[in-house]
Protein backbone atom coordinates (compact mmCIF):
# COMPACT_ATOMS: atom_id res chain seq x y z
CA UNK A 1 0.00 0.00 0.00
CA UNK A 2 1.41 3.31 -1.00
CA UNK A 3 1.70 6.10 1.44
CA UNK A 4 -0.39 9.07 0.55
CA UNK A 5 -0.97 12.59 1.55
CA UNK A 6 -4.58 13.58 1.22
CA UNK A 7 -5.97 17.05 1.30
CA UNK A 8 -9.37 16.47 -0.15
CA UNK A 9 -11.93 19.03 -1.04
CA UNK A 10 -14.51 19.63 1.60
CA UNK A 11 -17.58 17.87 0.47
CA UNK A 12 -20.18 19.72 2.39
CA UNK A 13 -21.18 23.27 1.74
CA UNK A 14 -20.01 25.06 4.84
CA UNK A 15 -21.86 28.05 6.09
CA UNK A 16 -19.73 30.80 7.39
CA UNK A 17 -20.70 32.30 10.68
CA UNK A 18 -18.86 31.37 13.76
CA UNK A 19 -18.83 29.72 16.23
CA UNK A 20 -18.67 27.19 13.47
CA UNK A 21 -16.19 24.42 12.87
CA UNK A 22 -14.54 24.05 9.47
CA UNK A 23 -16.29 20.97 8.12
CA UNK A 24 -19.54 21.07 10.07
CA UNK A 25 -22.12 23.51 8.72
CA UNK A 26 -23.69 25.52 11.52
CA UNK A 27 -27.29 26.47 12.15
CA UNK A 28 -26.30 30.14 12.17
CA UNK A 29 -26.88 32.57 9.34
CA UNK A 30 -26.35 36.23 8.49
CA UNK A 31 -29.02 38.71 9.48
CA UNK A 32 -31.17 40.33 6.79
CA UNK A 33 -29.11 42.29 4.31
CA UNK A 34 -25.79 41.00 5.67
CA UNK A 35 -23.29 39.02 3.63
CA UNK A 36 -20.88 36.30 4.63
CA UNK A 37 -18.09 35.28 2.28
CA UNK A 38 -16.17 32.12 3.10
CA UNK A 39 -13.18 30.97 1.10
CA UNK A 40 -11.47 27.64 1.68
CA UNK A 41 -8.37 26.19 0.13
CA UNK A 42 -7.65 22.49 0.32
CA UNK A 43 -6.00 19.79 -1.69
CA UNK A 44 -4.58 16.31 -1.42
CA UNK A 45 -3.85 12.93 -2.86
CA UNK A 46 -5.78 9.72 -3.24
CA UNK A 47 -4.82 6.11 -3.08
CA UNK A 48 -6.24 3.44 -5.33
CA UNK A 49 -8.27 0.78 -3.52
CA UNK A 50 -9.28 -1.39 -6.46
CA UNK A 51 -8.16 -2.51 -9.89
CA UNK A 52 -9.50 0.68 -11.45
CA UNK A 53 -9.22 2.90 -8.41
CA UNK A 54 -8.18 6.52 -8.52
CA UNK A 55 -4.86 7.78 -7.26
CA UNK A 56 -3.17 11.15 -7.52
CA UNK A 57 -3.86 14.58 -6.09
CA UNK A 58 -6.71 17.05 -6.01
CA UNK A 59 -6.69 20.65 -4.85
CA UNK A 60 -9.75 22.80 -4.35
CA UNK A 61 -10.47 26.49 -3.88
CA UNK A 62 -14.04 26.90 -2.77
CA UNK A 63 -15.86 30.21 -2.42
CA UNK A 64 -19.08 30.27 -0.45
CA UNK A 65 -21.42 33.22 -0.10
CA UNK A 66 -24.38 33.66 2.25
CA UNK A 67 -26.92 36.47 2.24
CA UNK A 68 -29.59 37.09 4.84
CA UNK A 69 -32.98 37.45 3.15
CA UNK A 70 -35.32 37.92 6.10
CA UNK A 71 -34.95 37.05 9.78
CA UNK A 72 -34.28 33.33 9.97
CA UNK A 73 -33.86 32.79 6.24
CA UNK A 74 -30.69 33.03 4.17
CA UNK A 75 -29.62 32.05 0.70
CA UNK A 76 -26.21 30.50 0.20
CA UNK A 77 -24.13 29.32 -2.70
CA UNK A 78 -20.74 27.78 -3.29
CA UNK A 79 -18.55 27.24 -6.31
CA UNK A 80 -15.32 25.23 -6.15
CA UNK A 81 -12.40 25.33 -8.54
CA UNK A 82 -10.43 22.10 -8.81
CA UNK A 83 -6.95 21.33 -9.92
CA UNK A 84 -5.90 17.74 -9.94
CA UNK A 85 -4.15 14.81 -11.48
CA UNK A 86 -6.08 11.66 -10.75
CA UNK A 87 -4.94 8.57 -12.55
CA UNK A 88 -6.51 5.19 -13.08
CA UNK A 89 -5.86 2.04 -15.05
CA UNK A 90 -9.15 2.85 -16.75
CA UNK A 91 -8.35 5.74 -19.15
CA UNK A 92 -11.96 6.91 -19.02
CA UNK A 93 -11.59 7.62 -15.31
CA UNK A 94 -8.49 9.81 -15.57
CA UNK A 95 -8.82 13.43 -14.49
CA UNK A 96 -6.25 16.08 -15.30
CA UNK A 97 -6.04 19.85 -15.10
CA UNK A 98 -8.05 22.75 -13.75
CA UNK A 99 -11.77 23.24 -13.95
CA UNK A 100 -14.81 24.61 -12.25
CA UNK A 101 -16.78 22.37 -9.95
CA UNK A 102 -20.52 22.23 -9.54
CA UNK A 103 -22.39 25.27 -8.26
CA UNK A 104 -24.52 24.65 -5.18
CA UNK A 105 -27.32 27.01 -4.22
CA UNK A 106 -29.65 26.54 -1.29
CA UNK A 107 -31.77 28.31 1.24
CA UNK A 108 -31.25 27.92 4.96
CA UNK A 109 -34.28 28.23 7.20
CA UNK A 110 -33.97 28.61 10.94
CA UNK A 111 -36.28 26.17 12.65
CA UNK A 112 -35.39 26.83 16.26
CA UNK A 113 -33.71 29.56 18.25
CA UNK A 114 -33.41 29.49 22.01
CA UNK A 115 -31.10 31.93 23.78
CA UNK A 116 -30.59 30.78 27.36
CA UNK A 117 -28.53 33.65 28.72
CA UNK A 118 -25.94 36.20 27.66
CA UNK A 119 -23.82 33.62 25.82
CA UNK A 120 -25.59 30.29 25.60
CA UNK A 121 -27.78 29.48 22.64
CA UNK A 122 -29.32 26.59 20.71
CA UNK A 123 -30.07 26.84 16.99
CA UNK A 124 -31.48 24.38 14.49
CA UNK A 125 -31.74 25.08 10.77
CA UNK A 126 -32.76 23.23 7.62
CA UNK A 127 -31.39 23.62 4.12
CA UNK A 128 -32.80 22.77 0.73
CA UNK A 129 -30.98 23.36 -2.50
CA UNK A 130 -29.61 22.09 -5.72
CA UNK A 131 -26.25 21.28 -7.23
CA UNK A 132 -26.06 22.53 -10.81
CA UNK A 133 -23.78 20.94 -13.42
CA UNK A 134 -21.48 23.93 -13.89
CA UNK A 135 -18.31 21.85 -13.76
CA UNK A 136 -15.89 22.12 -16.64
CA UNK A 137 -13.02 20.08 -18.02
CA UNK A 138 -12.54 16.61 -16.63
CA UNK A 139 -14.78 17.50 -13.66
CA UNK A 140 -17.80 17.94 -15.88
CA UNK A 141 -20.88 15.96 -14.83
CA UNK A 142 -24.37 15.62 -16.20
CA UNK A 143 -26.58 15.87 -13.18
CA UNK A 144 -28.78 18.40 -11.47
CA UNK A 145 -28.77 17.13 -7.91
CA UNK A 146 -31.18 18.43 -5.27
CA UNK A 147 -30.31 18.08 -1.61
CA UNK A 148 -31.87 18.48 1.79
CA UNK A 149 -30.06 19.00 5.05
CA UNK A 150 -30.14 20.16 8.62
CA UNK A 151 -27.78 21.59 11.21
CA UNK A 152 -27.69 22.05 14.96
CA UNK A 153 -25.51 24.47 16.91
CA UNK A 154 -25.37 24.55 20.69
CA UNK A 155 -23.17 27.01 22.55
CA UNK A 156 -22.70 26.68 26.31
CA UNK A 157 -20.12 29.07 27.71
CA UNK A 158 -16.75 28.15 26.25
CA UNK A 159 -18.11 24.97 24.70
CA UNK A 160 -19.74 24.61 21.33
CA UNK A 161 -21.31 21.53 19.78
CA UNK A 162 -22.38 21.26 16.17
CA UNK A 163 -23.98 18.57 14.06
CA UNK A 164 -25.20 18.45 10.51
CA UNK A 165 -26.45 16.04 7.89
CA UNK A 166 -27.27 16.36 4.22
CA UNK A 167 -28.77 13.98 1.69
CA UNK A 168 -28.14 14.56 -2.01
CA UNK A 169 -30.47 12.97 -4.53
CA UNK A 170 -28.07 12.30 -7.37
CA UNK A 171 -29.83 12.26 -10.72
CA UNK A 172 -26.85 11.46 -12.95
CA UNK A 173 -23.09 11.42 -13.00
CA UNK A 174 -21.39 13.99 -10.78
CA UNK A 175 -17.83 14.54 -9.61
CA UNK A 176 -17.39 13.52 -5.98
CA UNK A 177 -14.32 15.06 -4.32
CA UNK A 178 -14.57 12.68 -1.36
CA UNK A 179 -13.35 9.77 -3.44
CA UNK A 180 -11.74 11.69 -6.32
CA UNK A 181 -14.07 10.15 -8.82
CA UNK A 182 -17.53 10.37 -10.34
CA UNK A 183 -20.61 8.84 -8.80
CA UNK A 184 -24.25 8.37 -9.64
CA UNK A 185 -25.28 7.26 -6.17
CA UNK A 186 -27.20 9.26 -3.63
CA UNK A 187 -24.88 10.77 -1.05
CA UNK A 188 -25.26 11.48 2.64
CA UNK A 189 -22.83 13.79 4.38
CA UNK A 190 -22.87 13.98 8.16
CA UNK A 191 -20.60 15.90 10.48
CA UNK A 192 -20.24 16.61 14.16
CA UNK A 193 -17.95 19.02 15.94
CA UNK A 194 -16.87 20.18 19.36
CA UNK A 195 -15.29 23.58 19.82
CA UNK A 196 -13.65 25.00 22.90
CA UNK A 197 -12.99 28.71 23.29
CA UNK A 198 -9.35 28.97 24.23
CA UNK A 199 -9.40 32.73 24.66
CA UNK A 200 -10.76 34.84 26.05
CA UNK A 201 -11.85 32.82 29.05
CA UNK A 202 -14.42 35.54 29.71
CA UNK A 203 -15.47 38.19 27.25
CA UNK A 204 -14.46 41.72 28.17
CA UNK A 205 -16.24 45.01 27.69
CA UNK A 206 -15.02 45.19 24.12
CA UNK A 207 -15.53 42.18 21.92
CA UNK A 208 -12.33 41.52 20.05
CA UNK A 209 -11.00 38.30 18.65
CA UNK A 210 -11.63 34.87 20.08
CA UNK A 211 -9.62 31.68 19.61
CA UNK A 212 -11.19 28.25 19.41
CA UNK A 213 -9.85 24.72 19.23
CA UNK A 214 -12.02 22.15 17.56
CA UNK A 215 -12.32 18.45 16.90
CA UNK A 216 -14.56 17.27 14.12
CA UNK A 217 -15.71 14.07 12.55
CA UNK A 218 -17.23 13.83 9.10
CA UNK A 219 -18.87 10.90 7.41
CA UNK A 220 -19.88 10.19 3.85
CA UNK A 221 -22.19 7.38 2.85
CA UNK A 222 -23.26 6.65 -0.70
CA UNK A 223 -26.01 4.28 -1.75
CA UNK A 224 -23.47 2.37 -3.87
CA UNK A 225 -21.93 1.22 -0.58
CA UNK A 226 -18.95 3.54 -0.52
CA UNK A 227 -18.39 5.23 2.81
CA UNK A 228 -15.79 7.29 4.63
CA UNK A 229 -15.29 8.52 8.19
CA UNK A 230 -12.73 11.21 9.05
CA UNK A 231 -11.66 12.79 12.34
CA UNK A 232 -9.33 15.63 13.19
CA UNK A 233 -8.52 18.87 14.97
CA UNK A 234 -8.74 22.48 13.92
CA UNK A 235 -8.24 26.01 15.12
CA UNK A 236 -10.30 29.12 14.51
CA UNK A 237 -9.40 32.74 15.13
CA UNK A 238 -12.48 34.90 14.98
CA UNK A 239 -12.66 38.67 14.88
CA UNK A 240 -15.77 40.80 14.71
CA UNK A 241 -15.95 40.83 10.93
CA UNK A 242 -13.59 38.06 9.85
CA UNK A 243 -12.29 34.67 10.85
CA UNK A 244 -9.28 32.54 9.97
CA UNK A 245 -9.40 28.77 10.25
CA UNK A 246 -7.18 25.77 9.78
CA UNK A 247 -8.14 22.13 10.14
CA UNK A 248 -6.98 18.66 9.26
CA UNK A 249 -8.77 15.36 9.27
CA UNK A 250 -7.43 11.85 9.31
CA UNK A 251 -9.17 8.83 7.90
CA UNK A 252 -10.72 6.58 10.51
CA UNK A 253 -12.40 4.16 8.15
CA UNK A 254 -13.16 3.95 4.47
CA UNK A 255 -14.91 1.51 2.21
CA UNK A 256 -14.82 2.21 -1.49
CA UNK A 257 -14.92 -0.01 -4.52
CA UNK A 258 -12.72 0.97 -7.47
CA UNK A 259 -12.43 4.54 -6.20
CA UNK A 260 -9.89 6.53 -4.25
CA UNK A 261 -9.23 6.51 -0.52
CA UNK A 262 -7.89 9.59 1.25
CA UNK A 263 -5.75 9.39 4.36
CA UNK A 264 -6.24 12.88 5.62
CA UNK A 265 -7.83 16.19 4.75
CA UNK A 266 -6.47 19.67 5.44
CA UNK A 267 -7.76 23.14 4.77
CA UNK A 268 -7.25 26.80 5.46
CA UNK A 269 -10.09 29.24 5.23
CA UNK A 270 -11.13 32.85 5.61
CA UNK A 271 -14.57 34.16 6.51
CA UNK A 272 -15.84 37.70 6.20
CA UNK A 273 -19.04 39.30 7.46
CA UNK A 274 -20.21 42.59 6.00
Amino acid at each position, binding site marked *: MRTMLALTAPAVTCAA*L*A*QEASFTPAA*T*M*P*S*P*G*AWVVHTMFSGGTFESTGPQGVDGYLMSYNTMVQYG*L*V*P*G*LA*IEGSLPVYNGSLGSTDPAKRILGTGLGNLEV*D*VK*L*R*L*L*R*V*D*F*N*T*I*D*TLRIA*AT*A*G*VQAPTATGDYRGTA*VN*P*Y*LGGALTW*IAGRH*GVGASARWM*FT*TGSTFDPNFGDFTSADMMHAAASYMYRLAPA*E*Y*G*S*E*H*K*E*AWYASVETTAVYETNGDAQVMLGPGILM*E*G*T*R*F*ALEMAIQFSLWQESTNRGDSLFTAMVGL*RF*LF
Partner: protein
Amino acid sequence: MHPTFRAMLAPAIALAAVLGGCEYCLVERSPEAEKLLHDDTVLTRSPAQIQVMGMSCPKCVSNVDIQLMRVPGVTRSAIDMSIGVVRVEFDPSRGITRAALAKAVDDSGLTVTSIQEG
Protein backbone atom coordinates in the same frame (compact mmCIF):
# COMPACT_ATOMS: atom_id res chain seq x y z
CA MET B 1 -38.66 7.65 -6.55
CA HIS B 2 -39.44 9.13 -9.97
CA PRO B 3 -36.43 11.03 -11.38
CA THR B 4 -38.43 14.18 -12.04
CA PHE B 5 -39.78 14.13 -8.51
CA ARG B 6 -36.26 13.64 -7.16
CA ALA B 7 -34.95 16.57 -9.17
CA MET B 8 -37.75 18.87 -8.07
CA LEU B 9 -37.90 17.90 -4.39
CA ALA B 10 -35.29 20.17 -2.87
CA PRO B 11 -35.97 23.19 -5.13
CA ALA B 12 -39.65 22.95 -4.27
CA ILE B 13 -38.89 22.90 -0.56
CA ALA B 14 -36.47 25.79 -1.01
CA LEU B 15 -39.08 27.80 -2.86
CA ALA B 16 -41.63 27.10 -0.16
CA ALA B 17 -39.12 28.28 2.45
CA VAL B 18 -38.47 31.51 0.56
CA LEU B 19 -42.17 32.19 0.04
CA GLY B 20 -43.00 31.31 3.60
CA GLY B 21 -40.15 33.24 5.13
CA CYS B 22 -39.65 32.31 8.74
CA GLU B 23 -43.30 31.78 9.57
CA TYR B 24 -42.54 28.38 11.02
CA CYS B 25 -39.40 29.34 12.86
CA LEU B 26 -39.67 28.43 16.52
CA VAL B 27 -38.16 31.31 18.43
CA GLU B 28 -38.45 31.12 22.17
CA ARG B 29 -38.86 34.72 23.26
CA SER B 30 -39.44 35.80 26.80
CA PRO B 31 -42.63 37.75 27.60
CA GLU B 32 -40.39 40.80 28.02
CA ALA B 33 -39.03 40.39 24.50
CA GLU B 34 -42.48 39.98 23.01
CA LYS B 35 -43.62 43.09 24.82
CA LEU B 36 -40.65 45.12 23.61
CA LEU B 37 -41.22 44.07 20.00
CA HIS B 38 -44.64 45.75 20.19
CA ASP B 39 -43.67 48.73 22.37
CA ASP B 40 -44.05 51.87 20.28
CA THR B 41 -42.84 54.15 23.07
CA VAL B 42 -40.51 56.76 21.62
CA LEU B 43 -37.05 56.91 23.19
CA THR B 44 -36.17 60.45 24.23
CA ARG B 45 -32.82 60.10 26.00
CA SER B 46 -29.67 58.78 24.38
CA PRO B 47 -27.93 56.41 24.86
CA ALA B 48 -30.10 53.34 25.29
CA GLN B 49 -28.83 50.21 27.02
CA ILE B 50 -30.15 47.02 25.44
CA GLN B 51 -29.82 43.75 27.34
CA VAL B 52 -29.27 40.91 24.88
CA MET B 53 -29.05 37.11 25.15
CA GLY B 54 -27.29 34.70 22.81
CA MET B 55 -24.07 36.62 22.20
CA SER B 56 -22.11 33.45 21.64
CA CYS B 57 -19.20 34.83 19.63
CA PRO B 58 -17.67 38.12 18.42
CA LYS B 59 -18.65 37.66 14.80
CA CYS B 60 -22.19 36.62 15.68
CA VAL B 61 -22.82 39.79 17.61
CA SER B 62 -21.56 41.92 14.73
CA ASN B 63 -24.96 41.20 13.22
CA VAL B 64 -26.36 43.42 15.99
CA ASP B 65 -24.12 46.26 14.87
CA ILE B 66 -25.26 45.80 11.28
CA GLN B 67 -28.96 45.82 12.12
CA LEU B 68 -28.89 48.62 14.72
CA MET B 69 -26.94 50.94 12.45
CA ARG B 70 -29.70 50.51 9.87
CA VAL B 71 -32.28 51.99 12.24
CA PRO B 72 -32.75 55.61 11.11
CA GLY B 73 -31.38 57.91 13.80
CA VAL B 74 -28.96 55.45 15.39
CA THR B 75 -25.48 56.95 15.31
CA ARG B 76 -23.37 54.38 17.18
CA SER B 77 -23.58 51.03 18.87
CA ALA B 78 -21.09 49.42 21.23
CA ILE B 79 -21.32 45.86 22.47
CA ASP B 80 -20.21 44.62 25.88
CA MET B 81 -20.27 40.84 25.63
CA SER B 82 -19.19 40.43 29.24
CA ILE B 83 -22.58 41.59 30.49
CA GLY B 84 -24.63 41.18 27.33
CA VAL B 85 -25.36 44.86 26.86
CA VAL B 86 -25.47 46.89 23.67
CA ARG B 87 -25.12 50.64 24.19
CA VAL B 88 -26.88 52.54 21.42
CA GLU B 89 -26.41 56.25 20.76
CA PHE B 90 -29.10 57.92 18.72
CA ASP B 91 -30.65 61.22 17.71
CA PRO B 92 -33.65 61.69 20.06
CA SER B 93 -35.38 63.92 17.52
CA ARG B 94 -35.78 60.99 15.11
CA GLY B 95 -38.53 59.33 17.11
CA ILE B 96 -36.87 55.95 17.57
CA THR B 97 -39.16 53.50 19.35
CA ARG B 98 -38.30 50.65 21.69
CA ALA B 99 -39.89 48.31 19.16
CA ALA B 100 -37.51 49.51 16.44
CA LEU B 101 -34.44 48.72 18.54
CA ALA B 102 -35.92 45.44 19.76
CA LYS B 103 -36.70 44.39 16.19
CA ALA B 104 -33.16 45.21 15.08
CA VAL B 105 -31.76 42.94 17.78
CA ASP B 106 -34.31 40.23 17.03
CA ASP B 107 -33.57 40.43 13.30
CA SER B 108 -29.89 39.93 14.07
CA GLY B 109 -30.75 36.54 15.50
CA LEU B 110 -30.37 37.41 19.18
CA THR B 111 -32.87 37.88 21.98
CA VAL B 112 -33.62 41.24 23.57
CA THR B 113 -34.67 41.26 27.21
CA SER B 114 -34.76 44.93 28.21
CA ILE B 115 -34.15 48.45 26.93
CA GLN B 116 -33.24 51.26 29.28
CA GLU B 117 -32.85 54.92 28.38
CA GLY B 118 -30.17 57.36 29.43
